[in-house]
């Protein structure tokens, strides 16, 4: 979920087993409270490490799986300009996955292990990528709404407590800004086009609006294990806070596009200074996150196939490296 903690099962926090352990935990929490970043080799509670590995690996998986709905449209991009933009964006997503895997490996879990968990269904990824990209307009909507929601999430994550994760987030946020802008520009072009193009734009936004809001995870009241993540500053803002930020920023952009958002309850609340919005269908969310969305099986199968098809390349490269090494020794 682009780094969201809410799709994870709660991690049991063990009571300190000794005085020494309690002292270390106290020093650790003090560092976090003082906004001192935690770096790889330092002492950290086992549950902190485990929470981070799980969150970061799921975040990385989301980036990599996120390449699929867009990859589907490369050969059908309507112009060379759109095609190079789409290629660059998808390459970025792959890069983002690698930044985060690299940061996660500093916690002692290998990338191979993390990828294995993705392929065997032990690790989840953002539910949004289990929806299909059905029209060209989806390439714009994904950039605008999906990457927009991801940025909202990731800006908060970049201020977290684990150094390598924060550094990866800062780099990613800079690049995501291109993703969101190219998406919005694409939609703007459609909004100035023919009736059919305007219709395609509206239809695409209708499909992606609610799943984008789900990207922030369950309502705070139903997200009980967020508290520990907040205390450790793995999470800096609550799901509902981030969702509200995203909605407030996005509604005026929708108005500018001349489209409607598919929520009759969406309206400005003068008193709160925020937009009110309708009920999210959490049943659908649960359905998709638990493997029964429109594309879950296809996404993992595609990943697995690419991985297996590439096995001979990995083997050949390893054999070549070994041969070269032996030569140098001889």
């Amino acid at each position, binding site marked *: 979920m682009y780094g969201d903690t809410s799709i994870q099962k709660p991690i049991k926090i063990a009571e300190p087993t000794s005085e020494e352990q309690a002292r270390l935990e106290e020093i650790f929490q003090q560092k976090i409270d003082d906004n001192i970043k935690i770096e790889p080799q330092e*002492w950290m509670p086992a549950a902190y490490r485990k929470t981070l590995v799980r969150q970061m690996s799921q975040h990385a998986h989301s980036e990599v799986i996120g390449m699929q709905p867009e990859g589907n449209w490369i050969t059908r991009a309507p112009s060379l300009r759109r095609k190079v933009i789409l290629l660059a964006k998808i390459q*970025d997503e792959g890069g983002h996955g*690698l930044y985060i895997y690299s940061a996660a490996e500093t916690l002692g879990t290998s990338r191979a292990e993390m990828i294995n968990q993705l392929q065997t269904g032990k690790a989840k990824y953002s539910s949004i990528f289990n929806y299909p990209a059905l029209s060209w307009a989806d390439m714009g909507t994904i950039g605008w709404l999906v990457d927009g929601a991801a940025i909202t999430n990731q800006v908060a994550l970049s201020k977290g407590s684990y150094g390598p994760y924060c550094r*990866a987030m800062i780099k990613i946020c800079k690049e995501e800004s291109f993703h969101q802008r190219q998406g919005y520009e694409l939609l703007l072009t459609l909004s100035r086009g023919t009736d059919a193009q305007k219709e395609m734009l509206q239809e695409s936004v209708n499909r992606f609006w609610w799943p984008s809001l789900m990207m922030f995870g369950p309502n705070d009241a139903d997200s009980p294990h967020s508290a520990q993540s907040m205390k450790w500053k793995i999470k800096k803002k609550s799901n509902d806070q981030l969702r509200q930020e995203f909605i407030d920023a996005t509604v005026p952009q929708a108005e500018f596009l001349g489209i409607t958002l598919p929520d009759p309850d969406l309206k400005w609340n003068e008193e709160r200074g925020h937009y009110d919005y309708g009920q999210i269908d959490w049943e659908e969310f649960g359905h998709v996150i638990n493997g029964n969305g429109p594309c879950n099986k296809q996404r993992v199968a595609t990943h697995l196939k690419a991985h297996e098809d590439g096995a001979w390349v*990995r083997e050949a490269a*390893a054999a*070549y490296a070994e041969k*070269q090494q032996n030569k140098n020794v001889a």
Partner: protein
Amino acid sequence: MTEKEWPLWEVFIRSKAGLDHKHCGSVHASDAEMAMEAARDVYTRRSEGISIWVVPSNAISASKPEDKESLFEPADDKIYRHPTFYDIPKGAGKM
């Protein structure tokens, strides 16, 4: 998993002439040449660098966090090593 994972390489990038190489992440690669190509693709897609170092991660010796006090604390009370320790009257001019 029978397949052996490619070794890990740390990546350092000089962003422009006149600056030091700075650590920016890591890549998996079977040899130095591939590590270089992967580092270029992963870490310099937007002109972030003009020079790359890749170093096998296991070749780096790092200080341990628990040695922090013995290594770095001795410098904390040597404030006379800093220029601001010395009072120079304004009349002496810029120094």
